[in-house]
């Protein structure tokens, strides 16, 4: 007898919520920065700010604000 719940096939098992438009944009830009600018933290801050993708408060990213935001979104 097949189990009523079979099969479990869920593409998203790590999310706590649908990404917001801000999160989608930030993620896509990060991928672009990693591809074009490099993998160091300084590259990331420079790359995001150069693309005018700012922190949630609208200010340019700093190392501190970026670390804090990634911690909020990725911890």
């Amino acid at each position, binding site marked *: 007898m097949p189990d009523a719940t079979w099969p479990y096939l869920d593409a998203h098992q790590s*999310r706590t919520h649908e990404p917001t438009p801000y*999160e989608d944009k930030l993620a896509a830009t990060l991928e672009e920065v*990693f591809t074009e600018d490099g993998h160091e933290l300084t590259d*990331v801050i420079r790359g995001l700010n150069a693309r005018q993708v700012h922190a949630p408060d609208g200010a340019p990213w700093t190392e501190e604000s970026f*670390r804090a935001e990634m911690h909020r979104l*990725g911890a």
Partner: protein
Amino acid sequence: MTLSCHDTAEHIYATGLRNQWHPVVPSSFVAPGALRKVTALGEQWLLFRRADGTLAMLDDRCPHRGAPLSLGKHLGDRVACWYHGVEVTTDGTVCAVPGLPGCNLEGKKLVTSLPVQEAGGAILAYFGDEEHPEPAELTLPGPLTDPGTDAFLCYAEWNVPWRYAVENLLDPMHGAFLHHESHSMYDGDTTAKFRIRETDRGYFFEKTDQRGVNFDWVELCRTGVDWVDLEIPYPPSGGPGGPFGIVGMVCPVDERRCGVFFWRYRRVQDWQRDTWRFLYRTLIEQRHWEVLEQDRVMLEALPADADQRENLYQHDLGVVRLRRLFRADAEAQHH
């Protein structure tokens, strides 16, 4: 007892090896205070979690007349069968027969209770046969216990015999073909020479002429639970931290079905870890899922007798070795 040593080697090979640990379902499938019915190694089981999180796994068969205990009632530290109310504790002891208090079933351990452990967000259970009820020593995969490594579990249920799912992992060459249209396995040679390298816990099956480009090596590890370790490079968009690894395990559900457990892991810490986790949730998990679906579609399409009519070549040595190990175990486990 549920798993018998008198089963044929063929049945054991088809439904999963005994006397070792297997993953069952993700921990999140059984909430505190909940019951959940699961199938594993061709048998029905009941997962029972107390409100404080303590987990137990029982044969899903009432010791009275065989009704599924999973249809019963969670009473905190025991389950009451729905049919006639017999109560069974988490160690499998009948603690009450409400219809006939004092009945001689009371106090008897009549239900198999499997040893369980939780690791990396999954429930593992030890499936011993009648002659081996004591759990085998279990060493968990390093990437799941190493504090410098971060992992996400992906679990999926496939209409595929368990051994085909494991064989697929011991077949790295399919990466360059089946997964050619993917975010991580588009690169590298489509021809390769492989070798087997024995280790004290299993063996490596690896390309001799390419590493770090595609799915180029895999290690089978038998450490009380069977698992594989492998590594696949991320493109530069994946950010710092190098390749991602996969710890893979398969739950034999029954002869035709399995549950696959893939922990995608990466050696990252600090902001690199947080960033990887953010990208994983937002973008990468979906892409990994699409790759996994390619495997599922192919494996579910294999005929049931696929392994009876083959013409193998050098790339299949990893699979041949695997079958030999599993066959030998199945033979040894039946008496």
